[in-house]
């Protein structure tokens, strides 16, 4: 599954990263998979939220089949 990245993660890793997810997964699994691939960004990921289909996702179980888009949302700083 392709995961969208933003801010410092997009700049340093790229606009997306490929993550292996089980057919049933938790948003925290997405962060963990990226952390495993890029341990350097553990601190950023710890501060980040996961968005599923453009909505902030609670850490409940999702079915990969029902999900069109996953994104990692580092701490926002608009305004």
């Amino acid at each position, binding site marked *: 599954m392709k995961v*969208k990245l*933003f*801010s*410092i993660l*997009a*700049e340093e890793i790229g606009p997306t990263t490929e993550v292996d997810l089980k057919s049933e997964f938790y948003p925290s699994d997405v962060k963990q998979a990226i952390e495993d691939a890029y341990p350097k960004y553990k*601190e*950023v990921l710890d*501060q980040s939220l996961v*968005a599923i289909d*453009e*909505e*902030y996702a609670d850490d409940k179980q999702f079915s990969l089949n029902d999900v069109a888009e996953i*994104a990692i*949302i*580092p*701490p*926002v*700083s*608009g*305004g």
Partner: protein
Amino acid sequence: MKIEITHEPIDTEALTQSLIHNEYGGVDIFIGNIRQFTDDIETEKIEYTTYKKMAEKEMHKLADVVLAKGMDVVMVHRVGELQLGDIAVFIGVAAPHRAEAFENCQFLIDELKHTVPIWKKEYDRDKIRWGGLED
């Protein structure tokens, strides 16, 4: 009502005029622009990026809270590379009474800063800082 994320300079006059209605008597507007100094840190420019579709969704959620109270709302955020003095964000609320206009305008900018996926990369004279990120 207008919600937008744009790369273009923000047209403050058009947005201000869009908030003047016979039905409402009070308009409160917040404008955030690029500031040169934050304490001792000197900023040279700021690059804003966004997750546009989600950001506009989140902005609509915030606006809906205020629209539901019978007010008019404008929320526009500029992204891309902004220079000192450039306007990054324009939030406006038109309401029957001024206290509501102030309260809801402040609500919108406070919440925007907490929930809307927009990020700043601050080019400061000493180093680059990513907004919102704890060291």
